[in-house]
């Protein structure tokens, strides 16, 4: 599976490794949607989770796709700048991507282009700041 992705996307796949059940892939943000579509055709039809992590120098947005048939997890992660990051939205590929993307925006501030309803989902609408960033301190 990883070889197929590397062949198809070449330099867009910055790093790829296989650890047991998980295929960890680092993807360039520009070709996220194509990689997701290819993975979905490859059998990874179940989008388990979209989440993110603040690694102090960048925001790492992590997508976890699971294939029911083979039981393997494709963990694709893309890097976004800490402030004002923009990533393409996967709602065109997975209908279930709408809400987790809204939560990542709510908690980290990464906006997703092409998202039908880019609003905060958990916090009140007039909330400033994104709590899960390392720099955000509880008052």
């Amino acid at each position, binding site marked *: 599976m990883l070889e197929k992705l590397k062949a198809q996307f070449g330099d867009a796949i910055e790093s790829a490794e296989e650890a047991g059940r998980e295929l960890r892939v680092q993807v360039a943000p520009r070709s996220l949607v194509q990689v997701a579509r290819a993975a979905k055709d490859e059998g990874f039809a179940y989008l388990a989770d979209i989440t993110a992590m603040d690694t102090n120098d960048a925001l790492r947005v992590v997508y976890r796709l699971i294939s029911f048939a083979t039981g393997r997890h494709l963990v694709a992660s893309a890097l976004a700048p800490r402030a004002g990051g923009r990533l393409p939205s996967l709602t065109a590929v997975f209908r279930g991507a709408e809400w987790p993307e809204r939560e990542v925006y709510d908690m980290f501030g990464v906006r997703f282009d092409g998202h039908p309803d880019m609003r905060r989902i958990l*916090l*009140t609408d007039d909330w400033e700041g994104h*709590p899960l960033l390392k720099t955000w301190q*509880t*008052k």
Partner: protein
Amino acid sequence: MGIAVPPDVKRPDSPESEDSLTPLGRTAEVICRVPGGTILMTTVDKVLNWGRASSLWYLTYGLACCAIEMMCTAASRWDLDRFGLIYRGTPRQSDLMFVAGTVSKKMAPVLRRLYDQMADPKYVIAMGGCACEGGPFHDSYFTVQGVDQIVPVDVYIAGCPPRPEALIDGILKLQEKINRESVRGKK
């Protein structure tokens, strides 16, 4: 750690209107001066308080884990009906509010609005650590540290979640508190 209570939530100690005495409350002052009047008043107090204490209809206000324990207490093993507590869906028909669970800042104005929409006389039981003072979420950025910042609370029940027996103990304490009330203003 003062947290900004959402703007449209009034402080609990500023009642909307000053005259909290009922018409009978005001006339009660006069009646008490007549010899034997106080006996009449205390019997009226007793009857009123008995009526209020033994038919506390509570508003189902399940927020988190405490709501499940509230349901178990209301169900057949601990049975709240014995104490005259029936769960009502709307604040209009309820005179006791169980705050069972964590109150988030998004929920604070809703909670205050529901409290305002309840008919007087109304009471509040803060159930569980989260409602009493934030509980395990004392350093959360989105939790109101104690529901008494929003509504005046009558009884606090500790526990996370409190056992059904603790809940019933809290209700009995509230009933004692109601029985001490008097028409001539809260003693």
